[in-house]
């Protein structure tokens, strides 16, 4: 394996993180923190540590050739995310007196993977710079730690494509640009512009700038961290909730689809099955939840119940995890619906987590096909998705991925329940689901008003790993555990 190129690119990932940390210092200074405050000292220390690491990696990788094959690309992504999570945890450890390292690790992983689960009950008392880092980590993780460089490093050539495909759930084949660098660059521009639009909308709707920017970063990345104690519900503003719903839906929709819409190269009604399925499911589940709330209160559907239903459905399905109400108090049918939405997640090629709508759609069609084949084996049924024919290999991959996710969910549940014997079944289940599918809140012990602080250190470390596994869609992390990857001739 060409380890030199991995070191070289790792040092660049670390350098970019330094820029992010520096911006946290800037925000801290602007919000009235002093240079010698504990929080800013924490960021300064982190910058020094990452610079040293970057220098070390640079020296180790200085002779690297710019040749990147699948093996290197997958390892690089997996290692980058683990290193970024470890480095991202340092500010919490230093800035917070008496902070447990696993809490910091959990928070850092939850940030970068845009999960939005928190291990701190008092996060709203954090200094502004640390709150900003919490949100910024989600914004960086939304697009991907490595994708940022794909756009900048043109020397990687086709290797950049492998990196992009493995880090984001989108496919580089959908780009209109020939060079993957330009394609990734266009995505970045889009990401920046919807972030700016979102921040502006929040500001106009009544947040102050700090709140608006923090919330925009966690909305667009479908992360779900909020610097407020009670998440979005604290604002008690229907307008803010509707803005939030709109931008969550936008960020969970395939980015390239929206870009094409803007450029008017795409008819909104045609061409992308996945986005359609996504919207249908969202509207249908909003309607169901509204119905449920109407049933509960006995009133006619009004603005409040529709908004609440839409907000919860969107927040859960896009895997953001903001809460406008405590849905843990809802009755089982509504909870079941939310659990299903958590599995499905958003569209591929967006910032949303979950198994992605496209995989569900493909798997369902394959299932229908296999049922048809059981009584009519000779009929040929076309399999198309988004106007493209689906190969047998692609269908196979989707089904295998779903199976791997299910196995991981079940095995992790066994593991967690052994570590935390006092947790209820639903708590264990949603503990794993909320992290593996990058959602954030779960039910019962880890419900929307609770946090993960009470869990044991081993559990929190394991959940951090689950979050990274889920964000990278398994393979980039799983390969790190395959011995053959590291052996010279295997």
């Amino acid at each position, binding site marked *: 394996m060409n380890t030199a190129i991995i070191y070289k690119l790792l040092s660049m990932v670390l350098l970019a993180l330094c820029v992010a940390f520096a911006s946290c210092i800037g925000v801290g200074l602007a919000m009235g923190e002093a240079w010698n405050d504990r929080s800013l000292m924490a960021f300064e220390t982190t910058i020094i540590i990452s610079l040293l690491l970057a220098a070390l990696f640079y020296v180790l990788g200085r002779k690297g050739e710019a040749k990147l094959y*699948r093996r290197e690309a997958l390892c690089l992504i997996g290692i980058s995310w683990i290193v970024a999570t470890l480095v991202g945890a340092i500010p919490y450890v230093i800035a917070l007196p008496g902070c447990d390292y696993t809490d910091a690790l959990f928070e850092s992983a939850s940030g970068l993977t845009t999960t939005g689960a928190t291990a701190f009950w008092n996060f709203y008392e954090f200094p502004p710079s640390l709150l900003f880092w919490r949100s910024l980590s989600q914004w960086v993780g939304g697009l991907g730690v490595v994708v940022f460089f794909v756009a900048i490093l*043109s020397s990687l*050539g*086709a290797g*950049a*494509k*492998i990196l992009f495909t493995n880090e984001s759930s989108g496919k*580089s*084949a959908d*780009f*209109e*640009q*020939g*060079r*993957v*660098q*330009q394609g990734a660059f266009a995505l970045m521009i889009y990401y920046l512009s919807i972030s700016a639009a979102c921040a502006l909308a929040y500001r106009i709707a009544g947040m102050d700038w700090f709140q608006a920017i923090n919330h925009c970063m966690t909305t667009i990345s479908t992360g779900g961290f909020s610097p407020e104690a009670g998440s979005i519900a604290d604002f008690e503003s229907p307008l803010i909730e509707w803005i939030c719903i709109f931008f969550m839906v936008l960020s969970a929709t395939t980015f390239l689809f929206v870009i094409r819409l803007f450029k008017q190269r795409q008819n909104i009604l045609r061409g992308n099955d996945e986005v359609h399925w996504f919207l249908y499911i969202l509207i249908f589940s909003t309607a169901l939840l509204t119905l449920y709330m109407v049933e509960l209160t006995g009133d006619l559907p009004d603005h409040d119940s529709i908004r609440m239903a839409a907000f919860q459905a969107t927040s859960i399905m896009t895997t953001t995890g903001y809460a406008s109400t405590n849905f843990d108090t809802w009755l089982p049918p509504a909870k079941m619906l939310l659990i299903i939405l958590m599995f499905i997640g958003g569209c591929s090629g967006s910032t949303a987590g979950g198994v992605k709508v496209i995989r569900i759609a493909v798997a369902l069609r394959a299932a229908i096909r296999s049922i048809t084949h059981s009584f009519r084996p000779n009929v040929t049924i076309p399999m198309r998705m988004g106007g493209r024919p689906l*190969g047998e290999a692609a269908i196979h991959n989707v089904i295998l991925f779903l199976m791997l996710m299910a196995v991981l969910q079940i095995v992790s549940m066994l593991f967690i329940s052994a570590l935390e014997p006092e947790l209820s079944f639903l708590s264990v289940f949603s503990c794993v689901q909320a992290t593996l599918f990058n959602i954030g809140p779960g039910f019962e012990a880890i419900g929307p008003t609770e946090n993960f602080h009470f869990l044991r250190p081993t559990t929190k470390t394991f959940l951090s790993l689950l979050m990274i596994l889920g964000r990278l869609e398994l393979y980039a992390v799983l390969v790190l555990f395959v011995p053959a990857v590291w052996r010279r001739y295997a």
Partner: protein
Amino acid sequence: MKIIIVGAGEVGSNLCTVLAASGHDVTLIEKSEVQCERLEEEQNARIVTGNGSSAKQLVDVGVAKCDAFLAMTSDDRTNIISCSLAKGLGAKNTIARIHDETYSDNSFINYQLHFGIDLLVNPEAICAVELAKEIRSAGRVEVEHFARGQIEVQRQRVAHGSRMIGKQLRELKLDAQVRIGYVQRGETTEIAHAETILAEGDIVTLFGHPEILFALREKFDPSQKIELSRVVLFGGSEVAINLIHLLKNPRFKIRIIEKDRLQCRKLAERFPQITVIHGDATSIRLMEEEQIDSADYFVACTKDDEENILTCIQASKLGAKHVQLVINKGDYDDLLGMLQTRLDIEVAVSPRAATADFMLRNLSSDSVAQLANMPDGGKVMEIRISHSSPVVGKAIKDIRLPKGCLFVALLHKFKAKVPGAEDIILAGDRVVVIVARDLEKDLIKALV
């Protein structure tokens, strides 16, 4: 630059790699899905599975906005249809790859104009020119080829006994296809004019059609006899056929070894002057029977690289004087240098590399390209005449070039010729010019 390539064979995919690496925005259309999956990983370009000669497909990939459209499949007809469609749909520059000379034979209809294709390129022909260069001009002082082998520049010494000594150039009645550029006498070099008198020991720079130049050689140096060259080709591929065309002169005795009986019959019927042998050059018995040891040139040009390499080594060992080969695959690029130094293989050409070079030069946005260096410090430049050039519409005799510069070739559309005084330069033409030392800037000022 936005470039669309149709067909991802050896030529197409190599072209894609080269162009993407030089920063172009490349889209590659290929019909095989399996191939596309592999390419997706190897190429930094957009890979589209589809039919490159379907108008819908071309519109989908944005042909109207592309700067260059390159049809590089191995099928001539697909390439021609694709290019013609692309041109109709708004592509700026369309280039089709062809193998068959049918489409470059313009005696009945000009295929290029008829289909609206900007350029037809034949990678196998480019390779054949490279191979023929060595074979045709053995023993000459200095040779350069331009315009796909249609024009050659060479330097020739006026030897003792030549009947040209003491005569003015106008008395020599040279063929219109040939021109004398410089006359170098001792340390001084001057541009030849009608009154120049040649003396013994002068070195003249000639340019024109290669075969006519060769015929002139004897007049400059009577001691040089025209010798027979025995050329053995292995493989009746496109390269071989192009090479046979280039070596039409009866002084080349060509023998071709081909494995396929049917192909042998076709070759024999098409080229009655050559000897066609049905057999396999990997067999040492056949090689000995065909007296490889007395061959001057052995050229391996089958489609199979491994056979080419091995038969070349074999031929060289058996005593063939000069050995040349064609390499198709890109994977052997790094081996080429080794082949040349260790195994005495003189020339190795590859259609993919030749095409990539050609395209890069053709697609480069600068209107000036340097083709070769002359030994006295001068340079040979190719200049594209743009619409804004001051020389558009002027006859050659009216254009004032800086002293020491000479027109060698005028390329109009697809045809190259040695320009005469009355020829008129049009926008879009390209000219090949010899520039004396340090005059490049003046020349560019005069022409661009």
